[in-house]
């Protein structure tokens, strides 16, 4: 539509142009506008004059006057008298001295009006005739047209410009609106945080742009879908693997349990205890290995939300309390409200971190018989702290299982934009999970 209007304007301009050219051409046909041509013709006509008389000169003048209505002509005869004049407005002297003649020639040379002075006939015996045409007659054709059709032209041009501005305004406003809409549509996100397809209404350039965008969205979705399937496959694989490994473990555990129920010696009892512990160790290692693999491939789902950290830690502790109680640990809990209790974390991840740390305390710091969990507020951070009195990281592990568990803690802590540090000596270990302010 807009483009059509622009075409229309172009056509209007073209029409004006054509009309102007046509008018100019017409004018050229009617009048000789070339100075040289006029001068030549004047001289030629003068040369051809014979039987010089006032009447004949007069007729000659009238003939020219008809062709150039604005021209004026006069004749100065051989004795220097002004013999004939047509259309002369200035006061001319009746008698032309040679001085005046020279002055006249000098004055008119290249001046206005355009003046041609020529002798009559083939010799100079008949005096000279003078043709004066105001230079304004020779205005360029456009100027002349302007003076003729000026008003109409002005109106047409103004109207056209106005029309042009209006149409341009409408056109660009339309384009701008559509571009803005397009931008808005591009910003829209689906529930899966992918952009939405755009409704293509017009099949112009912007429409094509929208089409291309839709195509991109489509491809993006496909690739996301592929990624999701891959992720699911991997998760599935690991889950199945974990299942397949655990089933024989469960059987082993069942058998040891059955044996333990029978009449057994102290020695067998000890052996069974070791077996049971080993089964649980393997189970834990499988679990950690699975998590580690998923974490390494960034396939471990994270969903962070604001939770009350103090409350969460307390609930974790509540579920671990019986385990510590059973091992006859001294348990100290000092959880007080922090300046900001809300931490943006994934509760599952955080639970995993706490589980791993507390499990390590039970497994590797059992000798200390002590655990303390407290909150800590410092100038730059707030933290919860787990303290034990075990033999420390370096000395504790006759079992090396702690390593992978701590790697998982490390990855998860960093994954949730928290910090942590460990201080470990032979008198115990202090672990702080910190959130900087």
């Amino acid at each position, binding site marked *: 539509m807009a483009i059509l209007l622009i075409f229309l304007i172009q056509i209007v301009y073209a029409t004006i142009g054509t009309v102007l050219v046509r008018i100019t051409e017409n004018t050229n046909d009617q009048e000789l506008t070339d100075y040289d041509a006029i001068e030549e013709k004047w001289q030629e006509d003068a040369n051809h004059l014979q039987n010089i008389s006032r009447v004949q000169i007069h007729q000659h003048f009238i003939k020219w006057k008809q062709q150039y209505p604005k021209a004026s002509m006069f004749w100065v005869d051989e004795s220097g008298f002004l013999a004939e004049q047509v259309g002369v407005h200035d006061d001319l002297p009746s008698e032309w001295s040679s001085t005046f003649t020279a002055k006249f020639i000098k004055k008119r040379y290249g001046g206005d009006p355009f003046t041609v002075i020529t002798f009559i006939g083939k010799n100079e015996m008949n005096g000279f005739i003078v043709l004066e045409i105001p230079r304004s007659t020779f205005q360029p054709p456009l100027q002349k047209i302007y003076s003729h059709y000026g008003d109409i032209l002005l109106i047409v041009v103004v109207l056209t410009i106005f029309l042009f501005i209006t149409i341009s305004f409408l056109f660009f406003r339309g384009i701008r609106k559509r571009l803005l809409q397009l931008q808005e549509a591009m910003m829209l996100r689906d529930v899966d945080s992918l952009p939405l397809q755009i409704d293509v209404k017009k099949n112009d350039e912007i429409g094509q742009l929208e089409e291309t965008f839709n195509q991109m969205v489509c491809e993006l979705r496909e690739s996301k879908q592929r990624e999701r399937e891959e992720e699911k496959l991997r*998760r599935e694989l*690991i*889950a*199945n693997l*974990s*299942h*397949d*490994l*655990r*089933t024989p*473990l*469960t*059987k*082993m*555990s*069942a*058998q040891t*349990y*059955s044996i333990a129920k029978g009449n057994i010696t102290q020695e067998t009892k000890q052996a069974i205890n070791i077996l049971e512990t080993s*089964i*649980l160790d393997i*189970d834990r290692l499988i*679990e950690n290995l*699975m998590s580690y693999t998923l974490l390494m491939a960034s396939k471990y*789902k994270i969903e962070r939300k604001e939770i009350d950290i103090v*409350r969460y830690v*307390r*609930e974790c*502790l*509540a*579920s671990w*309390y*019986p385990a510590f109680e059973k091992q006859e640990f001294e348990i*100290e*809990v*000092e*959880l007080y*409200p922090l300046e900001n209790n809300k931490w943006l974390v994934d509760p*599952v991840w955080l639970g995993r971190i706490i589980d791993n740390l507390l499990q390590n305390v039970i497994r590797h710091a059992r000798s200390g018989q002590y655990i303390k*969990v407290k909150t800590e507020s410092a100038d730059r951070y707030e933290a919860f702290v787990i303290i034990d009195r075990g033999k420390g990281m370096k000395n504790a592990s006759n079992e090396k299982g702690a390593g992978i568990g701590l790697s998982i803690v490390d990855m998860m802590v960093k994954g949730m934009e928290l910090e942590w540090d460990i201080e470990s000596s032979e008198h115990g270990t202090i672990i702080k999970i910190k959130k900087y302010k």
Partner: protein
Amino acid sequence: MFHVLYIEDESDIGSWVTKDLTERGYNVTWLKSGEDVDKYISNVDIVILDVMLPGLDGFSIGKRIKNKKGNLPVLMLSARTTVEDKIEGLSFADDYLTKPFHPDEMVARVEVLLRRFQKNDEILELSHLGIYTKDMKVVNNNTGGEIQLTGKQYYLFQYFIRHLNQILTKEQLYEGVWGETYIEGDKTLMVHIRFLREKIEENPAKPTIIETIRGIGYRVKA
């Protein structure tokens, strides 16, 4: 005698669990697949369900059971330990136990579920108290008299009995009994626990039934 419906395709584990539960006094029906679970659910008290089954998987069977009989407790049993599995399982099931497990733990969970669904018409003996779990009648065995618990005390004590042996935080108790979000510093719960102790404890200054776990919360241990 409680009737347990146990669905497990692994024969070694299946026979072991069946044997153990039978020895503990449960009446066990063991199925190797969940295809005709519908026939049994009308006269069982609890379902123990393995997740990985041939044909219909445990999740689908569990959902089917819950649709047909919402008040039948379902304990999921699985060697799949991913969080997603647990979440999916717990979206309908009442508890989720991962393999390998100790039979004691399984039985403990079964008992908790039976109590929660009030299938258990037992008389719980807690020091000098006799508690009829189904209608929450509390009797002082020393005097033989019934202890009358008023409104919130009743619900509070019931909440403890349903979560026997579990440590409950202030928040959990408040939200479980009052149904509102706990606000830090609110003394309502402490006041009610003091009243409750005055009624049920032999010596409220040295409580033995409702145990205070310092820094964490409270616990009623069987």
